């Protein structure tokens, strides 16, 4: 009946509406073109006779990689002039998705020793064939100057910075003289887990669900990000060139995830550790977590899982009981193509680079040096296995020559402590008696700079709980305890400890006890980064929270480092400077200059009196902030000084002159501040007084309005005068004390 519309012949139906635009929009797109066709290059050139065999083989190879095809889908173009194939084939797939999968799976597939497949989409070939041959200059991006990453070092007042994390807020503070302290930057929800400085202070890292983000520059802009989902731990290499991240959740690469050098690829799936290049943000390599062998061993992660050589050239990881694998940077390939097989190896440490070594290495790099710089060195230890005694070994790297081995007996546990200049290695050996009932401690000290690496043994009767070298020094401090409670710690029990200082006797080459401070509760030693000053702290105790500040060179002149053994009596330079108390202290950290000490009570440990305090090296409190939900305090590290040795000496020599200049500044500022404060107070008082006068006037008016009698000042005075005064006199006239003798 209807002539049009029903059959859909004409779109202009009764109302004359044109639907073509809508139909265009919602039109189902058919697979058009040749997206499902792949072009495979690198196929052997064959005669007609071998055709069937070849097609079977190709189909088999594809099938093995999970992209099954039929021989009928392969079409082989022929060169009719010589009757041979052209060396490429077309393969048709069911759809574009299958084709894309086959392309990634088969591209670069070695067909036989001479032929490697190169697989491309047919459409791509066409596109590249049609490319415009004329070269067009790409538009250069506009140059945007970046902020200097070390701008904080240029602070005119020479202040240090520290970061605090409280509640959801991260703050960066300036720290200097009291008047110069201020908040430099703060941001809410800057991090999801915690914050961390890079070792030279260039970046601050924040941890998020998606990964790690680095920030830097004066306005704390985004620098780099490392997409490691659910990252929990991070570790920078010593020169800040690389970063290692770890997540408890194995890496998963979902379908359609972003690809590229900065992202995980399917090969990384199931791994936990990732190594990244900080400057480019590229992923270098991933590893699974290595746990110690054995069923009964508790699975405990060692962190850092990867240990960096001090020059960032190598990174090594230990497979407990088997080997140490060292990787070269930046390729992250296994150095020498094989790991160092060491039966039973438990732990190892790289030797740190001293200032001298660094200078030599730099000179070498510039080609100016005549001396060969010291090679990297690592120390490792193996426990007693079968008939072989426990052993500590020093090894050169990359030459892998063994420098020194020392056999040890009755070993329960070893800890390797390098002095930070790489001069000494102390191996703290926990030994057991034959019956394995009691534990005592030996210190095996290797003098690494001397010929043949002489070893000296310091025997101790007690168990050592903490050991620490003086930075750049020849002294160390250790905490030992014979307290029976040591083995079974319980809340509320404070273990009694002894703190001892040892020093190298020059010439003789052995370490001698300087002094023992007995019956303390201290469980932590913190040397100032400049040496000389040391803080003993009692951490993690609910009843004690003492901080003791000590100076080990009290008699020495400040202007120069003591050279050679002092003539004074042995150990007389040790002086107690002060004692302080920070209730509930959980962390103790020196600032990079060694002038200030920060202590904090973190809400991650307990919730009592969270906050932080800053002390000077004598133990005087400079500031203290009790802040709810305070979590983290971190000084911003400083990079090494750019001044040469000579320039530093110059400064030491002219110290008096410089200090006079600073004293003047201080004095000027002090008067300025007090004037400011007085003015501020005056203003507050004036405001208050003005308000009071106004209120009093209003009150009087109000009273008047209500028809009440206003008490005048005079009336009040009168009342006062009428006041009765009652005097209580209590006088002792005589006091007799009688003694009754029965």
């Amino acid at each position: 009946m209807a002539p049009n519309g029903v059959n859909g012949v004409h779109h202009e139906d009764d109302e004359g509406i044109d639907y073509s635009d809508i139909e265009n929009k919602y039109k189902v797109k058919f697979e058009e073109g040749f997206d499902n066709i792949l072009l495979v290059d690198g196929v052997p050139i064959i005669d007609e006779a071998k055709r069937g065999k070849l097609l079977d083989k190709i189909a088999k190879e594809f099938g093995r990689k999970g992209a099954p095809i039929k021989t009928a889908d392969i079409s082989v173009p022929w060169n009719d002039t010589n009757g041979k194939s052209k060396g490429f084939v077309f393969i048709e797939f069911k759809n574009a998705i299958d084709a894309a999968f086959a392309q990634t799976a088969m591209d670069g597939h070695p067909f036989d020793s001479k032929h490697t497949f190169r697989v491309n989409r047919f459409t791509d070939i066409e596109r590249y064939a049609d490319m415009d041959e004329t070269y067009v200059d790409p538009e250069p991006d506009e140059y945007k100057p970046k902020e200097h990453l070390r701008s904080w070092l240029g602070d005119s007042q020479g202040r240090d910075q520290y970061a605090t994390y409280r509640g959801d807020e991260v703050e960066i503070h300036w720290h200097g003289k009291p008047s110069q302290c201020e908040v430099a930057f703060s941001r809410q929800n800057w991090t999801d887990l915690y914050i961390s400085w890079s070792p030279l202070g260039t970046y601050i890292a924040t941890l998020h669900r998606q990964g790690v983000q680095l920030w830097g520059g004066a306005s704390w802009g985004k620098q780099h990000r490392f997409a490691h989902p659910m990252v929990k731990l991070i570790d920078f290499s010593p020169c800040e060139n690389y970063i290692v991240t770890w997540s408890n959740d194995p890496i998963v690469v979902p379908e359609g995830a972003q690809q590229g050098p900065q992202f995980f690829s399917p090969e990384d799936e199931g791994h936990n550790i990732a190594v990244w290049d900080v400057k480019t943000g590229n992923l270098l390599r991933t590893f699974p977590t290595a746990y110690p062998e054995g069923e009964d061993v508790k699975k405990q992660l060692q962190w850092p899982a990867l240990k960096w050589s001090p020059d960032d050239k190598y990174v090594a990881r230990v497979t407990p009981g088997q080997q140490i694998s060292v990787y070269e940077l930046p390729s992250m390939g296994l150095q020498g193509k094989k790991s160092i097989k060491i039966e039973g190896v438990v732990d190892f440490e790289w030797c740190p680079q001293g200032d001298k070594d660094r200078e030599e290495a730099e000179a070498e790099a510039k080609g100016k040096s005549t001396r060969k710089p010291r090679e990297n060195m690592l120390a490792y230890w193996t426990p007693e296995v079968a008939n072989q005694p426990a052993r500590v070994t020093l090894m050169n790297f990359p030459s892998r020559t063994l420098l020194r081995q020392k056999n040890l007996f009755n070993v329960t546990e070893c800890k390797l402590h390098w002095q930070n200049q790489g001069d000494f290695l102390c191996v703290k050996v926990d030994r057991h008696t034959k019956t394995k009932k009691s534990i005592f401690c030996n210190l095996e000290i290797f003098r690494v700079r001397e010929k043949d690496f002489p070893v000296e043994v310091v025997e101790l009767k007690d168990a050592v709980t903490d050991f620490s070298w003086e930075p750049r020094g020849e002294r160390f401090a250790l905490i030992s305890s014979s307290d029976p409670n040591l083995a079974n710690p319980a809340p509320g029990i404070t273990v009694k400890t002894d703190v001892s200082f040892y020093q190298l006797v020059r010439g003789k080459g052995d370490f001698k006890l300087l002094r023992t401070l007995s019956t303390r509760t201290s469980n932590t030693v913190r040397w100032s980064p400049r040496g000389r000053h040391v803080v003993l702290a009692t951490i993690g105790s609910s009843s004690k929270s003492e901080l003791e500040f000590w100076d080990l060179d009290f008699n020495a002149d400040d202007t120069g480092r003591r050279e050679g053994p002092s003539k004074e009596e042995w150990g007389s330079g040790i002086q107690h400077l002060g004692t302080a108390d920070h209730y509930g202290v959980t962390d103790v950290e020196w600032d990079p200059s060694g002038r200030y000490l920060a202590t904090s009570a973190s809400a991650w440990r307990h919730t009592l009196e969270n906050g932080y305090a800053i002390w000077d090296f004598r133990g005087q409190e400079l500031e203290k902030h009790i802040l709810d939900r305070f979590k983290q305090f971190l000084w911003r590290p400083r990079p090494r000084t750019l001044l040469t040795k000579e320039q530093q000496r110059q400064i030491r020599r002219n110290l008096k002159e410089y200090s006079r200049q600073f004293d003047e500044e201080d004095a000027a500022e002090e008067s300025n501040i007090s004037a400011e404060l007085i003015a501020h107070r005056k203003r507050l008082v004036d405001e208050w007084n003005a308000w009071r006068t106004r209120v009093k006037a209003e009150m009087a008016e109000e009273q008047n309005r209500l028809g009440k009698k206003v008490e005048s000042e005079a009336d009040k005075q009168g009342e006062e005068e009428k006041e009765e005064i009652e005097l209580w006199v209590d006088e002792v006239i005589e006091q007799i004390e009688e003694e009754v003798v029965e």
Partner: protein
Amino acid sequence: MRPILLQGHERSLTQIKFNREGDLLFSCSKDHIINVWFAHNGERLGTYDGHNGTVWTIDVDSESRFLVSGSADNTLRLWSVQTGKCLYRWEFPTAVKRVAWSEDDSQVVCITEQRMGYQCAVRIFDIDREGDGTNQSKEPSSIFYPIGSKATLCSFAHVPNLILMGHESGKVALFDAKTGDEVLNNERAHMDVVTDLQLSPDRSYFITSSKDKTARLHETKTLTVLKTYTTETPLNSAAIAPGKPYVLLGGGQDAMSVTTTSLRQGKFETRFWHKIFEEEVGRVKGHFGPVNTIAVSPKGDCYASGGEDGFVRVHHFDESYFRAKPYGDLEIEE
């Protein structure tokens, strides 16, 4: 001077109050007893016996003739200060949490708790001061029920017929005594329960303390916050020192968690803050439980604090307190 320790209560103190001359100190506690003491030597003058539950609150009139008290036995009582006799008792469905005299001693305001289906109520009674005081009217001259957050504190404001109230939500408000309308409020005066409210001598400003660890000074007329004193512990009481620009704050760890904390973490000190500069000036130790209530003598020569530990400590200021000018010669109006 050494503080005087008043050991007359067996349980924690709830409120202490000086009379107008500052020579008598009244104290009430959870042990049902009200005591009165000589402030100058700490001798106990007598007790007011009769309540059958925690005595939450007391107030004495300006002539030191009548004392009112409110208790958890659901009664409000009028006492003769001199004889210790109970002159009159009003009974309510729930406990009385706060009482206060009006400036001219003619009225008493009280708050009863919201409990067991009964609303929180504010009642104002006219007090007959003629005769021996036993002839009081049973019915309040006005009653109203503040809606919303529970009211915990009340006092007469700077003008008659205005009641100043503190609430559990941290709100401070002015109510019309006759109509019960909310005249003015500051919803966000505090972030937590308001624990104490004390007025300046001329009632033109007042101080509040709160569990949110701050104390604040407000103007009565506008309820604007003039000063804020931020501490690190929940506060139970705050008082204004007459004659000197100080405020006194007291508090400490919550009573229920006291047993798990040591003395030094408990922060059971009375803190002196500078009223104008909002800086802490000093602390006085002594209690071994939270400080529940603080009162300063109207003469400004001594103060007393009552603690969860059941003691009242009366401190007479030393000569140096009056002489000292820690902030120079700035003239500060009362």
